């Protein structure tokens, strides 16, 4: 017995004597989900599908082609900012992190991110190669704080079969409204002809739905939403007009009202409504439905930017970026991060197969990008898409506050003026308390 114990102890002791891994290690933290069971070993980027699959495969490919660098991947639940904040507070942040461009100001404003202009230039990635929207997303206070990875925006995903039933197709193209009155008219005609709501909207547990509508049409009307870093302006005729339109759509049951995002997605796939305003990232799944015989969306799917209801064309966009939390790093670690970013930049086209718009202008002109479904219709957003000013911090928390008040207004729980006043007060209180 004692011999066996001695042998076991010896084995345990010798197990620690293996050759140390002397490769340069970089810690990469991302959201977009976990799919190791399917893509854990895959390096065929062209064959990968979806956000998780594509990014996992790109990273696997980098690892296979760069054996001198060890990529330690940390997958966090979306959006992962509480974890990142805790890591930074504990002094142990990762080397690269996926971050929404709208969130960068929060961390950059507190000096928690490294400016990346020099590192990117060293890797042969100049900010002049970014798209307009991508550049606006990562340049804060005149400095580059990330490598933009894509531009994401909200689009009208359209069931053209139902639109045809309602007489809202012309020359094979969906007819979209040009004013709020026309939208209500289309919606009523659609409801009468099909028995279904004109809009499918995720209004439960999804503040971004109402905030996306509000920001988009405020920008279209040329309204100044944030006159400075500490104030928002929502008690305006422009904001009231927008909220009242969506309140009317709900009140007349021209929109779905009690669905969360999965419910709204299922409703659109099952042909239970005309238009689903949601993100670029749903193009892939809906295109797959449109190509499957027997499905309600079969050959009945189109995508368009939000229609111009007021003022000018506008799109409120965001995007993902790769940022570098501030910490001590050796030259070899920085070089490894640079090589990794270069590899990602070279695969930006592969990422756009997920439905997102590219962050590098050269990809926009590639024939294979133009050949992807519906990209020609939405590519302009990479240039025209607008974000909130770079001095606006806590955009995610602000979206939550505004979304909550708009939800109350649109569903009829609160009068529109009171909801807008409450939203303005709550956001201004938040901004006033920022350190």
């Amino acid at each position, binding site marked *: 017995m004692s011999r066996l114990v001695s042998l076991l102890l010896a084995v345990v002791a010798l197990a620690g004597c293996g050759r140390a891994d002397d490769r340069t290690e970089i810690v990469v933290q991302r959201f977009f989900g976990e799919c190791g069971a399917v893509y854990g070993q895959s390096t065929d980027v062209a064959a990968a599908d979806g956000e998780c699959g594509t990014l996992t495969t790109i990273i696997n490919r980098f690892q296979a082609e760069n054996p001198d660098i060890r990529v330690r991947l940390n997958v966090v639940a979306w959006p992962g900012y509480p974890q990142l904040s805790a890591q*930074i507070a504990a002094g142990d942040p990762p080397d690269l992190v996926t971050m929404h461009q709208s969130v960068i100001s929060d961390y950059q404003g507190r000096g928690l991110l490294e400016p990346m202009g020099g590192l990117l230039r060293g890797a042969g990635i100049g900010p002049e190669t970014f798209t307009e929207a991508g550049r606006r997303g990562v340049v804060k206070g005149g400095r580059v704080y990330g490598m933009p990875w894509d531009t994401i925006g909200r689009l009208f995903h359209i069931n053209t079969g139902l639109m045809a039933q309602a007489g809202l197709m012309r020359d094979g193209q969906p007819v979209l409204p040009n004013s709020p009155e026309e939208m209500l008219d289309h919606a009523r005609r659609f409801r009468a002809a099909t028995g279904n709501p004109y809009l499918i909207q995720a209004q439960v547990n999804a503040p971004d739905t109402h905030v996306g509508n509000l920001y988009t049409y405020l920008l279209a009307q040329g309204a100044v939403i944030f006159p400075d870093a500490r104030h928002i302006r929502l008690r305006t005729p422009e904001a009231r007009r927008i909220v009242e339109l969506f309140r009317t759509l709900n009140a007349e049951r021209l929109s779905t009202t009690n669905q969360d995002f999965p419910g709204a997605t299922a409703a659109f796939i099952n042909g239970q409504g005309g238009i689903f305003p949601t993100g670029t990232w749903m193009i892939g799944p809906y295109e797959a439905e449109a190509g499957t015989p027997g499905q309600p969306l079969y050959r009945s799917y189109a995508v368009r930017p939000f229609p111009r209801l007021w003022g000018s064309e506008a799109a409120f966009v965001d995007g993902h970026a790769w940022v570098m939390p501030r910490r001590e790093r050796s030259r070899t670690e920085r070089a490894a991060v640079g090589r990794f970013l270069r590899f990602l930049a070279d695969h930006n086209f592969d990422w756009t197969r997920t439905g997102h718009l590219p962050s590098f202008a050269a990809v926009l002109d590639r024939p294979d990008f133009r050949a992807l479904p519906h990209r020609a219709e939405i590519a302009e957003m990479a240039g025209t898409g607008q974000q909130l000013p770079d001095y606006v911090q806590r955009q995610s928390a602000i979206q939550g506050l505004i979304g909550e008040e708009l939800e109350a207004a649109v569903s009829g729980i609160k009068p529109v003026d009171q909801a807008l006043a409450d939203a303005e007060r709550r956001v201004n209180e938040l901004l006033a308390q920022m350190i």
Partner: protein
Amino acid sequence: MTRSRGKAGHLSGYAFAGPFLLLYATILVYPLLLGIWLSFQRADLFGARTWVGFDNYARLLTDPTFHQSVLNTFVLALLIVPPLTVIALLLALALNRATRTAAVFRGIFFSSSVLSVTIVTLIWRFILTPDAGLVAEISQVLGREPLPFLSHPDLTIPSLAITTIWWSLGFPIMLFLAGLQQVPPDIYEAAALDRSSRWSTFWRITLPSLRRTLVLVIMLQTAAQLQLFGQAQLLTAGGPSGASRTMVLFIYEVVFGRWDLGYGAAAAEILFLLVLGITLAQYWAITRREAER
């Protein structure tokens, strides 16, 4: 001689209690004091601190969102604790027998307690969601409009309460079963000889014997439900319009969403005082009645 033995006894007592006290002070008392100190600061997650005195508490007193979260938390505790206690007691009474069927059902009723909050809310989302949920499907079969359990301001709190009761049943049932097995069988035999009715046996023997367990269940559940978080975050995100935001969800949003650590700490201290006060009041009410006896 006696004095030295007493001293040695004291020292050995401290030696036994010391490691626990050290751990207790490190992971409970120190964070508690740190939280109190933070509540007087304007602070973020990354070390910025400015002394603001009672400013955070003053803000809480005038914050309607916080007031609503306090009210929601109390309503939820009231909707959860009494029914949970009664249902757990009834189930324990029904399952307190040495049969194979009872053992199987004990396992079934306890099984929900081992699930994580993520799984629990996923299950209840499948049941309650108004477009394709189980309840919605049944409503439609019966020709009725599905109820928006997760998006109507009057229905979200009851939905959270039902979810929590289902999830939390296992532990109180086990406590009641343990309590029931402590009741001496000869008392029941005496009651049977006296031809005592079932109700009379329950009211005069079982319930008084379970008094301490009952108090324990009520106190534990009250403290737990005042800190309800995961269900509210995952099922309704506190909506619609804050109608189901609890105090802990409010604290989470303030600290991790707005990075307003001092304000969140002040709200956490108020929650701590409420839990402490209510638990002590319950304890005082029970022990006073026992002392009167």
